[in-house]
């Protein structure tokens, strides 16, 4: 089966600092892949490179066919406009006319339970509401692949639960690909089918979730083992 996404020898370098070293990875349609690792391990850089907002220094990122992607960032940027228009903008940029975009935007806001705030200014929302709005914007374009960069790391426990509930609902209803980075290992266990462990821009483990969390890794993947024990930061 042809993978939906294939990375071959991807290198990303910022000046003298090499953020990603020769990354090779394949992802099949419908897989839910979690990227874990300490801060600075290259998780966000990898997601941004896959999404195409960060140019790679060398290597290839190959998507099989036209794959509609959407990305939710750790701290979503809110434009100084209404919540509904904020979502509609993403749809308008996809080629919809403005009135259709606004209609579809309202439906997407329903999915994240923000319909009552449709006319509020997006900048005035709380952190949790802003993250839900970012999800609404991503869901509105019906992505075949969703990329999430630590989507709940800057939220309080209540907002975290709400955002995770949206993610789980979306996973249950859609057999789409999910690529996400997280420091929350409980969340990784709940959402991912596969875990990729990164350290200093290199992939040091790439295992099914069950195996990553429940099988001894001290000999096969010692770095990942130390990370799980909290001894690798």
């Amino acid at each position, binding site marked *: 089966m042809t993978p939906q996404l294939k990375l071959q020898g991807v290198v990303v370098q910022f000046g003298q600092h090499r953020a990603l070293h020769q990354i090779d990875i394949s992802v099949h349609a419908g897989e839910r892949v979690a990227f874990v690792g300490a801060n600075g391990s290259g998780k966000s850089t990898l997601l941004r490179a896959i999404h195409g907002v960060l140019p790679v220094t060398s290597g290839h990122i190959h998507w099989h066919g036209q794959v509609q992607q959407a990305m939710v960032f750790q701290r979503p940027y809110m*434009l100084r406009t*209404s919540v509904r228009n904020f979502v509609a903008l*993403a749809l308008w940029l*996809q080629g919809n006319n*403005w009135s259709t975009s606004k209609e579809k935007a309202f439906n997407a806001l329903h999915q994240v339970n923000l319909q009552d705030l449709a006319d509020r200014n997006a900048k005035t929302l709380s952190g949790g509401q802003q993250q839900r709005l970012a999800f609404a914007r991503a869901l509105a374009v019906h992505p075949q692949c969703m990329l999430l960069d630590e989507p709940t790391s800057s939220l309080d426990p209540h907002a975290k639960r709400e955002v995770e509930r949206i993610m789980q609902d979306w996973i249950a209803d859609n057999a789409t690909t999910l690529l996400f980075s997280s420091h929350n290992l409980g969340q990784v266990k709940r959402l991912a089918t596969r875990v990729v462990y990164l350290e200093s821009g290199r992939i040091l483990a790439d295992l099914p979730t069950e195996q990553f969390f429940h099988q001894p890794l001290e000999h096969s993947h010692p770095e990942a083992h130390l990370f799980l024990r909290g001894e690798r930061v």
Partner: protein
Amino acid sequence: MNALVVPRYDIQELLLFEELPLLPMSSLIDSLFAALELITQQDPMLWTVVARSLWVSLWATAISSVFGICFGAWLAVSRFDGRAVLLTLLNTLLALPSVVVGLVVYLLLSRSGPLGHLGWLFSLKAMVLAQSVLVFPVVAALTRQCVEDADRLHGEQLQSLGAGSGLRSWLLVWDERYVFLTIVITAFGRAISEVGAVMVVGGNIEGFTRVMTTAIALETSKGDLPLALALGLVLLAVVLVLNIGVAAVKSWCLRMDGAASNTLQKVWV
């Protein structure tokens, strides 16, 4: 070879023989009263000069803002060979002396110049052109910095939505619009306070191209310091009133943003 003869002057002698205008403290108070008198008596000469100054500087600010914001926003998101040189040049132009601008515009508009056929020299149009040239680098450089900073922080997220560099720069300009009010006010301040460029291309013709700054320069040279100071106070008052107006508009918009965005929504539609 003739020896170079350098005349020797003693500053004390000069002070004795020349009737240099001195300004005691009482003159400051006098000029304040003169300014108030000019304002309260609604002196037509004063208000004509004020209106002419505002007309020239507002047009110059409007023209340079349109071009400066477009150019600055484009420069912020564009990447091309020689960009660094262009940025250095633009930042250098921030220190452009106004008389140099006046001279260049004068040469362009003089009868033998490339724009001589327009017949604008010693007219208000020439003054608007000179001030626009003077103020353009201020608007462009500040816009470039503002949009580039915003793009560094948020550009990826807009790119992620599918916005190309052109749309991205406009979305960022739109989103940072309150900062642009400050940039425009800075540009207006630079325009209305300059004297060199409008003096050279306008000629300071009474009743035609005399504006507040050139009038102040003239009255100072004539020794009528109270009148010059009075005009200066009026100039400051005009700028103060405009700044208060812009601050009020900005604060009202921010309040509206906080409460609801219905007004801004209409702008989107």
